[in-house]
């Protein structure tokens, strides 16, 4: 009877978005009279940081500071259509829609500025801090604030834009079944080290080391936060969480947070996160969807590490001490017994 150390590895190739009846999202952008920009969406921020990312994407595209952008996700009855924030699709689908809407709004903004400055719109550029000037002649400039005022009160223009991003439905080829369900994939690889007590079946995760390839990290701190939380959640799925421990038998399911187990602040494994950026050709500024995939590779990596430690393959989640002990007993039983 001993504590046995094992190491396991697993990799994941994870599609961004989904392929049901087509996967669309829409966005509308307009400026206020004082040159703030509103982005109207039906997409919802439930903690993944969608509002911040969409503000950054809109700001980058129009050429204004992100603080000037307000994201309105108020009402799915009245906002432009969105399929939803799931399938790790938010940044990619909605971000692309925001880029399209912001590009159109930027064009109107430059046209109004051109009229004010009596130059060609194609000769103008933004400085990113709230001004528009003639390329190569920064003294010939107008602020976005004044441009918006002019659009509203002088020129009768609406500085606004419509955005739509659609990944059309992909049908499988009848002969081969081949299809293109996604346009880009995020990737991850995880190495987990565990200690398995072969007397009690208890597993301690010693370390979890993850490499994530996520296209481009539009907000590196928020990406890191998502990946750290996701890595923990993957371990939690692997070893703890279930509402039906004897599925399909529903007995002994947890009924509250006392019985529904998750690792707490005292059970944290040493965690490492490395981010690789390989921009997606069709991603907004290269981004893919890191959301869900970051909690996936830990699960097979834990199962592989347990196999490495004590030689039993567990193919039911979560991998509880009971399952490990039963497998160890079956392994020790003489063949045919």
């Amino acid at each position: 009877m001993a504590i046995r150390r094992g190491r396991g590895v697993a990799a994941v190739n994870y599609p961004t978005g989904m392929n049901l009846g087509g996967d669309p999202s829409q966005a509308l952008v307009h400026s206020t009279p004082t040159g703030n920009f509103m982005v109207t969406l039906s997409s919802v921020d439930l903690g993944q940081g969608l509002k911040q990312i969409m503000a950054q994407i809109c700001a980058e595209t129009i050429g204004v500071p992100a603080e000037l952008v307000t994201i309105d996700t108020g009402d799915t009855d009245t906002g432009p259509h969105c399929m939803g924030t799931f399938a790790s699709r938010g940044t990619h689908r909605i971000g692309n829609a925001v880029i399209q809407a912001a590009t159109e709004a930027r064009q109107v903004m430059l046209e109004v500025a051109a009229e004010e400055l009596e130059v060609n719109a194609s000769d103008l550029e933004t400085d990113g801090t709230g001004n528009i000037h003639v390329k190569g002649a920064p003294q010939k400039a107008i602020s976005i604030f004044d441009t918006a005022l002019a659009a509203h009160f002088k020129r009768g223009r609406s500085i606004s834009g419509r955005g739509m991003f659609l990944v059309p439905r992909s049908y499988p080829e009848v002969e081969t079944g081949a299809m293109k369900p996604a346009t880009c994939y995020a990737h991850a690889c995880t190495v987990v080290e565990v200690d398995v007590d072969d007397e009690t079946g208890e597993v301690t995760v010693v370390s979890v080391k993850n490499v994530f390839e996520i296209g481009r990290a539009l907000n590196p701190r928020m990406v890191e936060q998502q990946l750290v939380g996701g890595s923990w959640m993957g371990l939690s799925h692997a070893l703890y969480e279930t509402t039906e421990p004897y599925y399909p038998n529903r007995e002994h399911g947890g009924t509250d947070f006392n019985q529904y187990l998750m690792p707490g602040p005292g059970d944290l494994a040493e965690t490492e996160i490395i981010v690789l950026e390989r921009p997606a050709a069709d991603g907004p500024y290269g981004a893919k969807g890191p959301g869900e995939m970051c909690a996936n590779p830990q699960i097979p990596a834990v199962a592989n590490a347990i196999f490495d430690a004590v030689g039993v393959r567990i193919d039911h989640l979560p991998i509880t001490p009971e399952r490990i002990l039963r497998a160890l007993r079956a392994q020790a039983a003489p063949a045919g017994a």
Partner: protein
Amino acid sequence: MAKKVPVQVTLNGEERAEFVESGATLLNALRGRFGDTSPKGGCHQGTCGACSVIIDGELKLSCLTLAEACDGAEIVTTAGLATNSAMHPLQRAFAEGFAAQCGFCTPGMIMAAKALLDQKPDPTREDVIEALSGNICRCTGYEPIIQAVLAAAAASPHKAA
């Protein structure tokens, strides 16, 4: 109709009085009567910590506390931590340390952390873990929260020299 009882408390430094339903939990009274929605109801049975508040200097689960038993008490919630527009050091550390995602656990975490730092301005990592062990978080994996509490302690002017 359930009987209403008067409850007078000092809530975040302010004298407040409301009629609450007899038997109402402090959590429901704070959110529904006193208009302070910073304590969150995650489980309403004492297992998640999201409803944590400080009553007369002690960390309590407001979902397991009867509102009428708090008559005369001094209650501090996360909504009362900022002074004017300046965030409390814990709030700043949580924001700067990216220690909140959905934010549902955050007020409870911050109250648990405040109760710790009030007692022990210079805690060890183990002290922080112990103090947060009654609070559940779905999103962060806890490490950023632990780091934020340690950062707030390090930044605190009350820190033992």
